């Protein structure tokens, strides 16, 4: 559709020199962030506690907290600043689902967002079971939200965002309380939405292994600054940021490969942070070393 000017229209989130400081704080929560996100891109955000990840999410959604704001943000062509009206093109899944869940029952909670946007009530009712199924909550329509477990609340909060059918989905550690398969399921839902509707995803996530398998690009925040970014296979080889005892966790596959490369047992260009690719490379290495012929499945 916009093939004529792909460069200009392709950027759905543009952030320039974003600065933010909470009232009374001694330092900037965000200290000059520059970021462009392309339409349909999957961007992972990682970094230690207090790096500014949640503040960035709030700013991208236009929910700029009270404080000192500087720089510019544009989301789907709309300028975002303190006091900006609701941005319908994007949805945010909050870090703490209890901040987000307001309905007494699961169905009421899911309907709240789209009803506020004056979407068709019959359409909303029809959509509810579909979104509950996507987050493994089928049959929970009439369940009281306060009785849900931590993980169930987190999945409901994700469904709350998905049912808005946003172009841009921003998620702040959406899987922190989910079991491992639950994490996979959330990532599968996001992947499907990307395929079917080309949505753009910005996700704060500590689950490095899933991030490495799915993200086009990962950015690392520390102390309010963007300290590194790149595709997973490049980013996770940065020894200043990963592979040290106190560093953020890197995918285990990348840690094994990193150590083998350090020991001279593998060549540097064989590095990857992706599970399947990594297993293939380890397999080839073992077979070559034992003199067997490498077979490709």
């Amino acid at each position: 559709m916009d093939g004529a000017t792909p460069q200009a229209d392709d950027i759905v989130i543009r952030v320039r020199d974003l600065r933010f400081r909470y009232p009374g704080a001694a330092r900037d929560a965000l200290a000059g962030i520059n970021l462009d996100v392309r339409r349909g891109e999957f961007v992972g955000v990682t970094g230690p506690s207090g790096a500014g990840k949640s503040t960035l999410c709030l700013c991208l959604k236009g929910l700029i907290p009270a404080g000192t704001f500087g720089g510019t943000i544009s989301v789907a062509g709309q300028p975002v600043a303190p006091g900006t009206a609701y941005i319908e093109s994007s949805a945010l899944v909050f870090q703490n689902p209890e901040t987000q869940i307001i309905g007494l029952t699961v169905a009421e909670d899911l309907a709240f967002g789209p009803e506020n946007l004056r979407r068709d009530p019959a359409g909303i009712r029809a959509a509810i079971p579909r979104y509950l199924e996507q987050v493994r909550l089928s049959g929970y329509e009439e369940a009281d939200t306060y009785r849900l477990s931590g993980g169930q609340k987190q999945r409901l909060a994700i469904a709350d965002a998905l049912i808005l059918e946003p172009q841009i989905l921003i998620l702040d550690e959406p899987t922190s309380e989910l079991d491992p398969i639950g994490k996979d399921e959330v990532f599968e839902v996001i992947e499907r939405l990307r395929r079917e509707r080309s949505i753009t995803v910005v996700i704060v996530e500590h689950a490095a292994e899933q991030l490495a398998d799915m993200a086009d690009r990962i950015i690392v925040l520390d102390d309010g600054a963007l300290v590194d970014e790149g595709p997973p296979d490049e980013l996770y080889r940065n020894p200043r940021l990963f592979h040290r005892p106190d560093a953020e966790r890197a995918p285990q596959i990348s840690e094994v490969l990193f150590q083998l490369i350090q020991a001279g047992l593998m060549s540097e260009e064989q590095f990857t942070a992706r599970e399947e690719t990594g297993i293939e490379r380890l397999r080839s290495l073992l077979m070559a070393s034992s003199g067997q012929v490498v077979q490709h499945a």
Partner: protein
Amino acid sequence: MLDGQAAIEISDLVFRYVPSGPEVLRGVNVRVETGEFIALIGQNGAGKTTLAKHFNGLLKPSSGTVRVLGRDTRSAPVADLARTVGYVYQNPDHQIFAQRVRTEAAFGPRNLGLGQAEVDRRVDAALALVGLQDFADEFAFSLGRGQRQKLAVASVLAMEPPILVVDEPTTGLDQAGSRGILDLLSRWNADGRTIVAITHDMTLVAERVPRTIVVNDGRILADGPTRQVLSDTALLRTAYLRPPQATRIAQRLSDLGVAADTLTVTELYTQMSRLLGRGG
């Protein structure tokens, strides 16, 4: 310790939140010895937290018995149980209520009737253990999520309970924070305290916790050495769990000599370098 007296002994525990409601725990038998470090794993809604809340009498069995250091939780005074079993909640905001960090950490020991000097000693020690010593006079709710999590742990540590139950202690923490909490738990365990940790973090379980119990659908699905439980991929799958990535990689390479019960990156790397060294 008296021979035969477990830290926690659970027999045929059945639990319903309402008398006519569904059984959330459906016949649980577990014995935890004094000084053990145990991980409770299972999918969301499996009953982990419900089970753990029986350890300190927050919940009482609908039928069956729960004994803590030999005492039945149905008859033991709550104050006694609170002294014996410390419980750190999943969400620190469900626990923290005081304005200042120091006041929050002092609440538990003060409630135990300790004198001011002993309360101060314990609070200082607990805050130092979790690395919050410089935040003692800050507002509790001005702390970040990770720091609030540490405060919740410190508040319970300050009571110095012989049994500690922590519900998802590393949720929302970065790697340094998670390791910090696990180091802390390991040190406490080394001092002879019993620790039960509910967690979804298979990597930390694999690296740190000797025994793992899988809760599934209100029952104990598996209970044994972590190496055995976490390398049983089929069993974990039925509980919506899966082994750590290092184990998954090892199992895909087991036909080439990598042990299928590999648990950690270090173990995987050691085997790879040995196999490559020998072949090359």
